[in-house]
């Protein structure tokens, strides 16, 4: 059917049909899912706090996202007089654009192994065959911080500037563990292509999922990715209690909404990446194997991937309402003193295993040993604020004598 659709178009346009179709589907689904994720997050937070959550618009509040969107679109779009107008308007666009662009190399279903743009197979990825998918994602998401920095600077507001500065320091720091954590995967798979990493796991079965060999990398990746997305507990750039709203203090209406669209798209990307890189993507034993060809197997594979990603979205949202925010020096300490050394050691472990042709299962105890070793060092480490020495008590003899 898709092939007929493609052949209906003139020759020169045929290579563009599938990418355009995929982009349209991804964008539309992403927008819808984002707005309903916001509803889910509000509901989830309500349930955790023994509340009910939004329930007035539609049955069980299901139309709340529609109302929210309408409100954001119809609200007065204030541009304060003291802002740098060009950058102020540009910043939300950058935020959304970069996070959406990162989704280009994330497969959202079983990508056919021999894919050409015109043979009518649905690609399940916007840009198939990118050899450096992982590096591409890190490159693009590292640009997302420009949205925050420019928004904060252009707002010409102390809170915004503080938020933007925190964001810049945080994102620059957390990019390193984020990139280092997946180097091990690239070494194990022999490729940086996300599709190949997925297929490598799917071919190896459930015991070939990367989580068994790289559990530590998974934790590091997840934490660093949440820090990149400015999600709690790493959302120091917008923390409401100290900075009003951080970099988006001066934003309103849909410009504000675009920042949050960007944030939620980032969350979706993280969840997809975690489930693809570490949990086998669309692979699930017995029901979604690479060789399963039954009717609707493609749909099942897509559903498996979506369910895995959904589980991670739930975890991210639950973490938001569970863990208190870090202090800024703790945030930086976590990146530079914990995550980066651990990620480096993890890569070295993978190198050792590959170089000496050891069994891959050695990586599991190695990761555990690294993790527990880090904990052991943590108990011994000195905490700078706890070591404040008490000034020797000045014996005020003269004062006492005078008083008596």
């Amino acid at each position, binding site marked *: 059917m898709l092939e007929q659709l493609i052949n209906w178009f003139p020759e020169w346009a045929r290579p563009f049909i599938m990418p355009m179709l995929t982009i349209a589907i991804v964008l539309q689904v992403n927008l819808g899912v984002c707005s309903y994720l916001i509803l889910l997050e509000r509901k989830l937070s309500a349930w955790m706090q023994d509340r009910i959550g939004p329930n007035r618009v539609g049955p069980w509040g299901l139309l709340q996202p529609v109302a929210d969107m309408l409100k954001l679109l119809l609200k007065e779009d204030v541009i304060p007089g003291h802002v740098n107008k060009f950058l102020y308007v540009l910043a939300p666009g950058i935020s959304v654009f970069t996070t959406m662009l990162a989704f280009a190399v994330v497969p959202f279903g079983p990508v056919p192994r021999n894919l050409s743009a015109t043979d009518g197979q649905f690609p399940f990825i916007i840009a198939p065959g990118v050899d450096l998918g992982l590096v591409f994602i890190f490159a693009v998401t590292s640009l997302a911080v420009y949205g925050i920095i420019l928004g904060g*600077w252009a707002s010409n507001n102390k809170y915004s500037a503080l938020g933007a500065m925190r964001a810049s320091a945080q994102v620059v720091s957390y990019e390193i563990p984020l990139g280092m954590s997946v180097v091990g995967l690239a070494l194990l798979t022999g490729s940086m292509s996300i599709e190949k990493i997925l297929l490598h796991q799917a071919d190896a079965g459930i015991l070939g999922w990367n989580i068994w060999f790289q559990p530590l990398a998974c934790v590091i990746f997840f934490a660093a990715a949440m820090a990149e997305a400015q999600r709690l507990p790493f959302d120091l750039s917008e923390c409401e209690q100290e900075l009003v709203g951080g970099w988006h203090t001066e934003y309103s209406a849909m410009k504000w909404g675009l920042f949050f669209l960007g944030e939620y798209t980032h969350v979706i990307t993280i969840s997809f990446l975690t489930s693809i890189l570490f949990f086998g993507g669309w692979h699930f034993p017995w029901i979604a194997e690479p060789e399963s060809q039954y009717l609707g197997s493609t749909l099942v594979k897509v559903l498996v991937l979506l369910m895995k990603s959904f589980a991670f979205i739930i975890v991210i949202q639950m973490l938001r309402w569970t863990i208190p925010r870090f202090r800024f020096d703790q945030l930086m300490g976590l990146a530079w003193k914990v995550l980066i050394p651990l990620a480096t050691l993890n890569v070295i472990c993978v190198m050792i295993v590959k170089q000496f042709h050891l069994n891959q299962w050695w990586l599991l105890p190695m990761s555990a040993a690294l993790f527990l070793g880090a904990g052991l060092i943590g108990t011994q480490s000195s905490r700078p604020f706890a070591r404040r020495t008490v000034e020797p008590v000045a014996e005020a003899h003269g004062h006492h004598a005078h008083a008596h």
Partner: protein
Amino acid sequence: MQWNEENGLLLIPLGLGCLAVWWLMPSAKQRPRILGGLAALAAILMMQLMLLPPAGDYVRNVLFFLFAAAAVISAGLMITDRNPVYAALWFALVTLAVCGLFLLNSAPFLSASTIIVYAGAIIVTFLFVIMLAQQSGTATSYDQQPIQPAIASIGAFILLGALLFTLQEWGHIDGKSTNLHAEPGQFIALPEGIQPNPLSQAPHDNPHEIGSLRVLGRSLFGDYLFAVEIAGTVLLIATIGAIAIAPRRSQGTL
């Protein structure tokens, strides 16, 4: 005199460009920016006529000129903009455009890592420092004016000219004697007589492999092993130095 006939024409856009940049640089006396802009445009157009694009199809050429123009214009605006924040942003655009050129020349890893390192980290740090220094965005007088605009622009364009002349001599990119064996997008053919590194294992037989991560890794850790190790050592020393210089918390900072 032979040299003059062949290359003398290049001096005109170079001189014009130098003048344009000097004219556009922020100064105490307001100069009409439109004149500088026109001069710069003329220099770019003349330069473009003298340097042929890489061989390739239509889409490639369009993309090449888009990226190249974006890079050159953003670079000009970067040094002539009054506002440091805008200058940093133009720098980011230069980086992105150059990364696009890398991508066109089958170097995706170089492109992506340049974006991560330069656009994603270094310029963000610039912005961080600029924002720390001046929050309101109106630059104060001390960094509104370049210190030696004339000498800087002349020096920069002498360097640029030297680079262009060398490339022309060496790689024949002016179209007068096109290297017939050059791959699409290849600017400089290896001169005869230069032997490849014996450590090099790059498989040159498979055209699909060119630009892949595997080839890049082999090249880096085969052809350029020494340079990579030296660079790594220098960076390590710099890191240790930074940690050593940075004051301790107990001494009252932060």
